[in-house]
Each structure stands twice: as structure tokens, then as C-alpha cells.
């Protein structure tokens, strides 16, 4: 299997996807496409269906209606285990294995995929350097000996280790202090621009969305209301989009010297 995609380079496509539990509709009518090199943000309030949608992509949840295509193959044709190993997954609580060292955590998927040990070691080194962790200093540490920011760096390194074409991220920087968060967001932007992955990124923070996203999908009550370019979002007339922009304004009003938000999509 290789990472080559079809002519239009489609990594993930959702067609009219819905998810319900018993009779309660959690998500409905969601459609979007993500190509390599793109970062699609799923933005919305808590409970709007962003995380649910993300989990439908790697089949942690099963769709109730509609279809999902991963690398142009219907999701149902994939073996769920193989599918998940082709999709990096990063969550807010990181979920590093506490009984494993950093090295073992990062090497997880390559070892599951039975890569030769020399290649695994080399890959771990590369990944740790990629996320800015000194191999000599951190490889043998347990997650409990790391700071929150370092843990999330390991989480990202682990997700990228088997070189998956797709990356799913669920509020990965949400639990970090503001300074570390800004640092990781900035580094992540550079990383995303370099790696050519198709990234789906869930957040409820518009500032983060504008900074990281190439496109922003706005979720409201289980629907994908619209997909915007970052600069379009600020001028949208949609009520929910305005609510988010206003919240940003309120936040900036509080801080006396508000840093200007610049999106990766805009300068690209």
C-alpha cells in the first residue's frame, strides 16, 4: 500500500453523514472533503457534534447514515484496524501509555505494523526531533516525568510516527497553559505546512482556528453550517459565525494590546 492518492488528491470525504444514538440525532447531513496539505478546522460550541464527526472518520463511532471515504475507498471496505493505523489521532488528554517510555509510546504504531527494529528506532528519533524533543533527554522518560506541553508533543510524534496521510486532532492544545499553547500552535502551523498531511482539527477556539486552519467548518447543533476560508469567516453574516467573532472581540477587548490574528490560509 502506498500513500499515492487519486488525481484530485482526496484524503477524506464525508457525504451526507449522520450519527444517532437510539432515536437522538447527534450529527446529520455533514459533507466535506479534505485534501493533503489542508487543515480543515471543525469549529463549534461544546456538544455541536465536532468530536463525534471526528470519531466517525476513524470508526471509533459507526456512521448511521451517509458515507465516508478515506483515500477514495469507502470506509466500510477498510479493515477498521488498518484504517486507524493510516490515520494519526491526537486527543486533548493525550492518552500516552503511562507504563511505557516516550520512546515506546512514539514507536507504538510502527511496532504494531512490525517495522524492522532499526527503522523503528530511526523513525522515533526523527519524530522526536520533528516535535522539538531532545532524544537523549526524553526518550527514556515516562509520561509522568513530562510537562503538559511535552506530553502533547509526544502525542503528536506518536500520531505521525507511522507516516499516516491523515491526521485527526481533537482539541490537542486545549488543556495547556496559554503560553505553551501559543508555542505549540505556532510550531504546529509550521509542521502542518511542511508535512502535506490532510488534517482535521477540532476546536472551540476561533483564534486557534484562524491561526491553524486553511478552512474552517462551522458546526451548530449537529449540522455543518458552512465552510469558510479564515478571512471570510470574520466577515460572515451567519449568526453563529458572528457569535464566535464577537467572542473573539470580547476577549481582545479585555487584553489591552491585542495581538493581531493571522491565519495560515491567508498568507498562503
Amino acid at each position, binding site marked *: 500500500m502506498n500513500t499515492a492518492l487519486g488525481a484530485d488528491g482526496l484524503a477524506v470525504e464525508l457525504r451526507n453523514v449522520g450519527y444517532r444514538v437510539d432515536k437522538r440525532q447527534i450529527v446529520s447531513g455533514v459533507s466535506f472533503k479534505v485534501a493533503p496539505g489542508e487543515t480543515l478546522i471543525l469549529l463549534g460550541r461544546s456538544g455541536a457534534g465536532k468530536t463525534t464527526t471526528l470519531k466517525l472518520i*476513524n470508526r471509533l463511532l459507526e456512521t448511521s447514515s451517509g458515507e465516508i471515504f478515506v483515500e477514495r475507498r469507502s470506509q466500510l471496505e477498510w479493515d477498521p484496524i488498518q484504517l*486507524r*493505523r493510516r490515520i494519526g489521532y491526537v486527543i486533548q488528554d493525550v492518552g500516552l*501509555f*503511562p507504563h511505557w517510555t516516550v520512546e515506546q509510546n512514539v514507536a507504538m*504504531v510502527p511496532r*504494531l505494523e512490525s517495522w524492522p527494529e532499526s527503522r523503528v528506532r530511526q523513525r522515533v528519533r526523527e519524530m522526536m526531533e520533528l516535535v522539538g524533543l531532545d532524544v537523549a533527554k526524553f526518550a527514556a522518560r515516562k509520561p509522568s516525568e513530562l510537562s503538559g506541553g511535552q506530553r502533547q508533543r509526544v502525542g503528536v510524534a506518536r500520531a505521525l510516527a507511522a507516516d499516516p496521510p491523515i491526521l485527526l486532532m481533537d482539541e490537542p492544545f486545549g488543556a495547556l497553559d496559554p503560553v505553551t499553547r501559543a508555542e505549540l500552535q505556532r510550531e504546529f502551523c509550521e509542521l502542518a505546512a511542511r508535512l502535506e498531511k490532510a488534517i482535521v482539527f477540532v476546536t472551540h477556539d476561533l483564534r486557534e482556528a484562524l491561526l491553524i486552519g486553511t478552512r474552517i467548518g462551522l458546526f451548530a447543533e449537529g449540522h455543518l453550517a458552512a465552510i469558510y476560508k479564515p478571512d471570510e469567516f470574520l466577515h460572515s453574516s451567519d449568526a453563529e459565525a458572528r457569535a464566535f467573532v464577537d467572542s473573539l472581540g470580547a476577549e481582545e477587548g479585555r487584553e489591552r494590546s491585542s495581538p493581531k490574528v493571522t491565519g495560515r490560509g491567508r498568507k498562503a
Partner: protein
Amino acid sequence: MSFWNFLINYRAEIFSRTLEHLILVSAAMLVAVLIGIPLGIALVRRPNLRRWVLGAANVIQTIPSLALFGFLIPVPFLGGIGARTATVALALYALLPILQNTYTGIAGVDPAVLESARGMGMTSRQILRDVQLPLSIAVILAGVRVAAIICIGIATIAAAIGAGGLGVFIFRGVAMVSNSVILAGAIPAALLAIGVDILLGLVEKKLTP
């Protein structure tokens, strides 16, 4: 006859009864571990089964041991007079702590760790073997330890249904109104419990990641 004289005169029997006791407890513990740990794991995934199984194990725990030994005697295959019945009864007593701790340990694994394990493409078996069991082994072993101590104590009653063990001295001592004879059973049983506790404590320490 003083206690020390009794000890010296009967050292061969004390040794063989201790061995009997140990074999009885080991057999019961083996059965309880082989049933309790897999069942405890299964309970994590079956909430409706959990109530019944843990409830039943709790009820068994409340039956006085002498009564349980008595109840088991007429039961076909499992019962009768002797070590087999005693093994069954002891295994039933050992079941609850093992079951309870296995369930608690596995259910207590951080959900974020499980979500990332599943999301990164581990199979259920790999998650059990590489994540859930290593992370709950200390709790499970603590249950095994408690079960072993309970078993060593209750096994002294097994002498009442002819299963041998250190209880033989205790019942004989009660009948003879001789403290020396009672102590010849009670002290080795207590030492056995302490020894097993220390041993399993070391195992626990060694296996804890």
C-alpha cells in the same frame, strides 16, 4: 505436655499438615485465579452481567465457612468428604476479592489511554494485553493477595470435613482442651499467611510497571 515438647515430638506431622494446607490453598487459588481474572475482565464489557456475578460472589462470601463446607458435602461431583470439597469451597471464597479487584482494576484504566489505543489501531486483544492488564496488574494482584490470606485462614476449617491441613491440630486441640495442640495448628497457619503475603507483595512490586 508443654508446647515446645509437642512441637518437637510432632514436627513431622506439623510439617506434613502444613504441606497439606499449602496444597489445599494453592489448588483453590489456582481455580479461583483461572476463573476470577477472566470473569472479572468479561464483567467490564457486560454491565448487566456484572450485577449478578458480583452479587452472587458477595452472597457466597457471607455464608459461614463451616456451613458452606457442610452444604457442599451432598453435592454430586464437586462435593463429598475430603480435599476436593474443601478446594471448591475455598475457591468460592477466593473468587470475590479476585473478581472484584480485576473488575475495578481494568475498569479504572484512564479512558483517554483506551481511546488513544483504539484510535491508533490496537486490536482489543492488544489493548487487553499491552494496556489494560499491565495498568491494572497491581490492583489485581492485591485481590489475589487478599484471597490467599482468606483461604489460608478458612482452610483450617476444612479439617472438619476430612480435608486435612493445619485445622486438624486445631480441632484435635479443641477436643483435647489442649492449647499446645491448638497452637501447633494456629501458629504455622499464621506464619503461612504472613509468608504468602510477603511473597505476593514482592511479586506485586516486581510486576508493577
